[in-house]
């Protein structure tokens, strides 16, 4: 982990009484390497380091604690804070029905995650209903339908000759008819720079008035994570982030990038292809992964 990487730094800082510009900068070089190798965006790395540096500088060293170890602790704890501090829940408070809108880039895991969420909500006693507004990808609607059967959650029948807005309206109708209390809307993957598709998503959002807009992001995304997250946040908005494919050997620096540029809480992580492989996001666990 960062402590191993820090061994050289720790040795050089031994016996010091104060953390100075020079020795803290020394340590920050190691942090920079760790974060960049973990795919954290370069501008986010710069901000994070500047922040940690100012926290560390001038701090008195603690008797019995190596100054190097003290810096590691500051870095680790600060990272946990920036990642959200603690777990964050879905906003399902209040009576009545909730609409959840799933958004994100192509292939990030939206359809699978829609089913994971529905399965989780069903277990928690809600009456979920799913609908696919993806009229573009071949067999996208079928994909959600098959998943719905697997988890025993109803899926509204939609076809590719409907448009997303009609589907949105029909889904709200159906939700009332079926007395469902959570509607999960899967959407087509889209580029943030695709004006037409972003407009479509914006119109769908207006019709649905979702209580949750969940941005589903692939945890292996590199430097580009800040661009797409920022654009989706500015153009559509997001109330939560879900990072998928965290079951790999991914360091997951995209988590820090996305959280930093949008401020949106990361609520869940996907940890596998099965609908059961879904967990709450724990900032402390992810912080350890990112620091390597």
């Amino acid at each position, binding site marked *: 982990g960062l402590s191993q990487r820090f061994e050289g730094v720790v040795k050089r800082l031994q016996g010091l009484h104060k953390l100075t510009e020079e020795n803290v900068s020394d340590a920050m070089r190691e942090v920079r390497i760790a974060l960049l190798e973990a795919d954290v965006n370069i501008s986010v790395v710069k901000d994070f380091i500047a922040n940690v540096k100012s926290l560390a500088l001038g701090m008195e060293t603690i008797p019995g604690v190596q100054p190097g170890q003290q810096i590691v602790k500051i870095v680790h704890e600060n990272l946990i804070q920036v990642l959200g501090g603690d777990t964050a829940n879905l906003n399902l408070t209040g009576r009545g029905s909730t609409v959840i809108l799933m958004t994100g880039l*192509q*292939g990030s895991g939206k359809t699978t995650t829609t089913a994971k969420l529905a399965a989780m909500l069903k277990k928690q006693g809600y009456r979920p209903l799913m609908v696919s507004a993806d009229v573009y*990808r071949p*067999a996208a609607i079928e*994909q959600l339908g098959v998943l719905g059967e697997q988890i025993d959650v109803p899926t509204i029948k939609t076809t590719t000759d409907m448009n997303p807005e009609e589907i949105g309206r029909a889904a709200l109708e159906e939700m009332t008819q079926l007395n469902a209390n959570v509607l999960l809307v899967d959407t087509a993957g889209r580029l943030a720079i695709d004006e037409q598709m972003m407009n479509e998503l914006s119109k769908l959002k207006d019709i649905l008035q979702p209580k949750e807009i969940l941005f589903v992001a692939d945890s292996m995304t*590199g430097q580009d994570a800040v661009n797409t997250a920022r654009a989706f946040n500015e153009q559509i908005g997001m109330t939560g982030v879900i990072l998928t*494919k965290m079951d790999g050997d991914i360091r997951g620096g995209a988590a820090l990038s996305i959280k930093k540029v949008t401020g949106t809480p990361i609520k869940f992580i996907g940890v596998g*292809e099965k609908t059961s492989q879904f967990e709450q996001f724990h900032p402390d666990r992810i912080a350890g992964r990112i620091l390597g």
Partner: protein
Amino acid sequence: VGAHAKLDDSFMDELEEVLLSADVGLDLTTRIIENLRADVKANLLKTVPEVIEFIKKELEKTVTFDEEEKQPSTKNSKPLVVLVIGVNGAGKTTTIGKLSFKLKKRGKSVLLAAGDTFRAAAADQLETWAERSEADFIRSNSGSDPSAVVFDAVKLTVSRGHDVMIADTAGRLHSKVNLMEELKKIKRIMSRELPGAPHETLLVLDSTTGQNAVSQAKIFNESIGVTGIVLTKLDGTAKGGVVINIVDTLKLPVQFIGIGEKIDDLRPFNPKEFVAAIFE
């Protein structure tokens, strides 16, 4: 980048940031920048335009596959069997549809094999692409063994006299040993049924992926051997700079790039355009 800048430290910092932001990776970026600083110090490069021109040429050279290093081409095998692999959601199934269309336009007869017997509606998705590209199609009639589908596909390819068979596989994370074993078995079954198959093994990489793409390429290559890379989603804002390292260290060529979701959104890889986009 630095259109009117002067060749100073802050310009070199800006250049470093351009490379890092393009997912070129820390090690390679550091090496490139250090070499540039040395060349500038030795007065070999004197102006910003010279530096930019130099680095573009260096990167183009690195990402251009050395034809001499390439394995003897089996592209003239008949039938030609192509195996498509990669992590979840990279764009394998869509790329196969595009490839099928390209081959059909060239007058080849193509069979698409739905080797993803795991994911919901995977076979339906590929079947749509087979219809759109007017290719023959085979899927599992029962059961979930991808090797069985691939076995039947090879047999069908030979019996119907197809020129090309492209086998889709389920997305899989390279860190999952059992899934990599499944892939090895698929390849074994293919080559047992038709010696030499698969003649091409294409690794599909999502251009939004960060440094993890390097370990994807490494592990997929170690497991079953990769003959070429397809870099998808380059129509987005990601630059896919991670392939520079992959071509350099693993000697794998980038064959095609995906630039959209439609059937003709597949282009041959062009090193000059790829590098130019990094500096846009």
